[in-house]
């Protein structure tokens, strides 16, 4: 008999399609897992709405549950429940090790350009905080580009959402 814990453990093995060092569970995008009459119901929400990997992620979750000998019903929920504050501490550490500066905590109130430009990001390569915002946008919707003045290396930062 498959348990909710088995399902969470299995989902924790699914890498994010764009940043494979971090799993869907680390990202905090799995909202809920329920088992009813042997059927596994998973609710998940994308990080960004223009995510092109929604369907592959759904299929990956179904396949993982299938390996456990059960059937999954994956529902995509578009609400305001996810923010970058939902990324787990383990997930943040994995991002850092892979060369991504993890997102800063969401400020109380409105996020604006002044905060984004000032927010101190530690360079994931040399550890210096002498870094600056190069581009609000990056190669995928979740990333901005920063530049480290200490080691002269551009690096990617997970946007605070």
């Amino acid at each position: 008999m498959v348990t909710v814990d088995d399902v969470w453990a299995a989902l924790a093995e699914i890498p994010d399609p764009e940043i494979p060092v971090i799993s869907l569970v680390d990202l905090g995008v799995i909202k809920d897992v329920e088992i009813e009459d042997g059927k596994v119901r998973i609710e998940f929400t994308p990080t960004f709405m223009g995510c092109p990997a929604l369907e592959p992620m759904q299929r990956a979750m179904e396949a993982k549950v299938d390996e456990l000998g059960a059937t999954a019903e994956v529902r995509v929920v578009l609400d305001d429940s996810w923010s970058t504050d939902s990324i787990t501490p383990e997930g943040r550490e994995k991002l850092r090790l892979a060369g991504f500066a993890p997102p800063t905590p969401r400020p109380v109130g409105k996020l604006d350009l002044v905060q984004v430009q000032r927010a101190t990001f530690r360079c994931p390569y040399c550890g210096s905080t002498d870094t600056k915002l190069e581009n609000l946008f990056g190669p995928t919707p979740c990333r901005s580009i920063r530049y480290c003045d200490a080691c002269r290396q551009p690096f990617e930062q997970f946007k605070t959402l």
Partner: protein
Amino acid sequence: MEPGSERVSERADLLLAIADDELVLGWRNSEWTGIAPFLEEDVAFSSIAQNEIGHARALYELVAEELGTTADELAFDRKPEEYRCSPLVELRRLEWARTIARHWLYETADEMRLAALKASDDPEVAGVAAKMDREEAYHRMHAEMWVDRLLSSDEGRARLSEAIDELWPYALGVLDEELRPELRQRAEERLGRKLPEVEPVPRGVHEAELAELWEEMTMVRRSAPAGTQW
């Protein structure tokens, strides 16, 4: 599906108008991919386009559920004249000052419209609007950064000014009548000058450029009908 027809609820009509705005503007923004004045803007406009089209998809899905259709059918199977987008997003603006003026005017109007949707009694609409707004915050920061940059030189200020004046009637047409005075107030405060008293270019009329864009946007879909296996 005729705009305002009996078949479409007020909710569907409103969401469709916003979805069409986001889809068409997303398409227009993507026209900078590969040819923006510098690499950072190539990346920025491409990323903004991806977000806008993602928002359109989410809104089309809400409407599709209500009308018993699909997001793709709503996005691609209507005739150009059935789209509910505002003429502001239809214009093909391959000139930088006008692109920035449209970007800033649209994002400013969109922020006001999203604030109203976030306060909606309909939890699905409020949820989607709030999720969209998190992403739109970055579009606004980007637009504000460019307005600052253009206002910082005489030439930039003059070019932005001319573009804003040209697009101002279109910008007013993005919003319902009751939100227009606030848009004027925000824009005048930011630009430090009065904007002309003009008749808004309303939703429902279309620029010739929309039909051209529609041809391109729906070409693959029309050549390979739904259900085609690749």
